[in-house]
């Protein structure tokens, strides 16, 4: 089987992968780099468990071929997790019991991470839209919405804080 060389940045580090043409990005991340936080739920682009960020935007790791990612920057759940513990969004998931089996969780967190990076004070509608392509079979979604809304709300407060500090200055 012919192997292709692909060079990209994964979680901030340049890597060169040797992959078959038919290998998906998700398989390459999991199999070649051991980044098993990217999950496969359907392998046909519906469930969102394989969501990763490609140049900051959520994409389906199961639909993208590894060979298509030459020169891109890929971020996985491992890439947005702090060296120890949880980031603010992850912590909010935990506080709101927004996961049960945890299988959909990395994809959910990445979709919302991308949304909140773009729109830190996203409203419920935007949050629903952001995870409309991420299936969760366990939680019934409501706790996930609450987890994301909580972060958006605290961003709103932080923003109000900064602007009031600025105006008082």
């Amino acid at each position, binding site marked *: 089987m012919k192997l292709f060389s692909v060079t990209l940045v994964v979680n901030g580090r340049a890597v060169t992968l040797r992959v078959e043409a038919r290998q998906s990005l998700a398989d390459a991340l999991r199999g070649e780099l051991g980044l098993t*936080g990217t999950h496969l739920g359907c392998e046909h682009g519906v469930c969102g468990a394989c969501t990763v960020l490609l140049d900051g935007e959520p994409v389906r790791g199961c639909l993208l071929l590894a060979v298509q990612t030459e020169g891109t920057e890929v971020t996985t759940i491992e890439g947005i997790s702090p060296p120890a513990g*949880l980031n603010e969004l992850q912590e909010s998931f935990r506080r709101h019991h927004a996961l*049960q*089996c945890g299988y959909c969780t990395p994809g959910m967190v990445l979709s919302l991470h991308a949304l909140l990076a773009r729109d830190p004070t996203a409203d419920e509608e935007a949050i629903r839209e952001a995870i409309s392509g991420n*299936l969760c079979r366990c*939680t019934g979604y409501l706790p996930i919405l609450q987890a994301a809304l909580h972060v958006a709300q605290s961003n709103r407060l932080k923003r109000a804080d900064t602007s009031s500090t600025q105006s008082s200055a």
Partner: protein
Amino acid sequence: MIGARLVRVEDERFLRGEGRFVADISLPFMTEAFVLRSPHAHARISRIDIGPALALDGVQAVVTAADLPARLPPIPCRIPTHGNMEPFLQPVLCRDVARYVGEPVAVVVASNRAMAEDGAERIAIDWQPLPAVADAIAGLKPDAPAVHDAGNVASRWGFDLGNVETALSEAAVTVRQTFGIQRHTAMPLETRGLLAVYDGARRMLEVHGPTKVPHTNHALLARMLQVSTAEIRFIEPDVGGSFGARGEFYPEDFLIPWLALRLRKPVRWIEDRLEHFAAINHSRESRFEVTAAADAEGRLTAFDVKLVADLGAYIRTHGDVVPSHAAASFPGPYRVRNYRVAAVAALSNKTPSGTVRAPGMFEANFARERAVDMLADKLGIDPAEIRRRNLIRREEMPWRVGTESVRRPIIFDSGDFSFVFERAVSEFDRTALPRSASGTIRRGRGICALVEPSAFGAFESARVEVDGEGFVHVVTGATSQGQGHETSLAQVAAAVLEVPIDRIRVRHGDTGLIRFGGGTYASRAAVMAGNAVHAAAVAVKAKALRTAAQKLEVAEEDVRLADGRFELAGTPEVNITFAAIARLLAPGNAELLQSPTVANIADNDGLTASCHIRGVPSGTSVFAVHLAEVAVDVETGQVAVERYLVAADVGRAINPRIVEGQLIGGVVQGLGGTLLEEIVYDAEGQLQTGTFADYLLPSVHDAPAITAMVIEHALSPSNPLGVKGVGEVGTSGAAAAIGNAVARALGVPAAINALPLTPERVIAATCAGPVP
């Protein structure tokens, strides 16, 4: 600790992407298996040629039924049934005749999955298609093709309680309706998978991937392989959901370990989604013909039910338990003493079936609660009122339904149904938003009252151990597929031993760590594993107390547990920590060996206790009320659930946050089964739904606002903690509540009788008549 809304200890690893699911595990020299499955619903195999597959580079083995050990039995049924299931059991690979699309025919093992698939493509099979039974009810006709030589009926049974004929003839009103529940299933987000590795020199077979009932399956695999149970270890990894379907003994649960043994190489098999659709247990497909009667005051006087369940092509591990539960529990929370049911478990050329969250109950609740609403309508009584008038009363507990399922009587152990009912109804009223019909939108409210029998199974085991550093190990025979047992069981141990939760480690699903285990099914883990851990922790505490008293040379009554140490009451400086006691009790402890008091501490086998607790045959019974408000667009047929409330008397909640999560998640799963999910076959028995694009799961857009009322009112008398199993009640009443709401919205009481409530069915219902 019991009752605390703790955040879960397992969350961090999942949130960081550090969960370890079976597909995340790989081993040096690992091979991968692909299961070749029948493309036909019913066909005879006249020839299989595996030669070309074996010749392919990278392919290491190809096996068919011809390679299986001689006298290998089919997969047995693990539950009592209503008939002899032997003729209908499934072999691990089909030999002559394939009976459903997806039946395993051969397994190819290769260096990687893609090569195994390439190999499978080269297996040549001559198939002779046979006529198929695509619908079990059609299969009951005398001229229907036979799924098995023994016919198309696995079992027939029934109950006839009270006097149904008299009640029907004396009734003020009766309704008669046939309800159809569609085939659907659990659909966990992670597909199944196994990784088996055999160390031939040490005669040790390790299997990663089992869940739900690993101890049961471990013993079965040993029997099928004819090896000692000591030569096999099952290890449960993190598991991406089960909801009842995953973790039973499937053909692959023999094939993959057996191949690892044969090849002496690690063999991994990870199911893909299409395969999952064809291979996992399906469930729920059934038809209920219901006659229900009431007197002029709206007192329910009789239920007369004919039930046919389509169990698919083989009888699997669960036998006929799904229709069995439905038949036994049909009367629900009502004081109805005249009840008759005639049930048939029928076969068809479709994937075999098993249990899925609220097995039989989701179906029975839908049929019964729709019929009760139809009676209310005829009598001109409000749906809440008719239920109010019929609920079993507190003083009538324990209530014996008079039926049994899997040889266990259906008894409701406790409950104050009216109390829970009124709280649920008034809360839903209180939070109502002023909304009404507008344009093409019709609104309606639906209600369902139910009792969920739960926490079945003979026993559960637990071991609690304190180590020399003061850490507490909890080993349970139960398993976890996302429910949060690592937290809730830690809470139980923490409550008894008064140690912080971060000093406790809970291990589950590993036959190498605990000799016996029941497992996780029938909403039993909190009840059975919770109480087993409780009993073991109490025993550890008693042992520690005894040892502390001896060491401190004081009376046991004068020793108190405080802040993780045992101290002399009133003289806290005289104390000994848990860790020190554990060290003292370790066999070979120097102090004990030298100590003249050695004779006083006879049980120096570590600070540990194992407990095996017996289950109560009838389990625990949770009363629940579901209320749904829907908006139906009569032009598009779209149903939107706008507001939902589920109230359940859980006895005692170990962690209310986890209980709420079970209820809310359960409701959305039930909503999927009500509005969206359906496994479709065509008339030839070809599977039509093989992707999430054809089989729709609820997405975030389908999730309504849900209020989960966790009520702790009637403690279960069956167990010291008083807890009741709550994993299934969220799902159990969803079709009933939503179905009733849609029928109300449309003003067609009789027209909502087939699930799922697709736009086509809803539009047909608006045109009044029932639809197929």
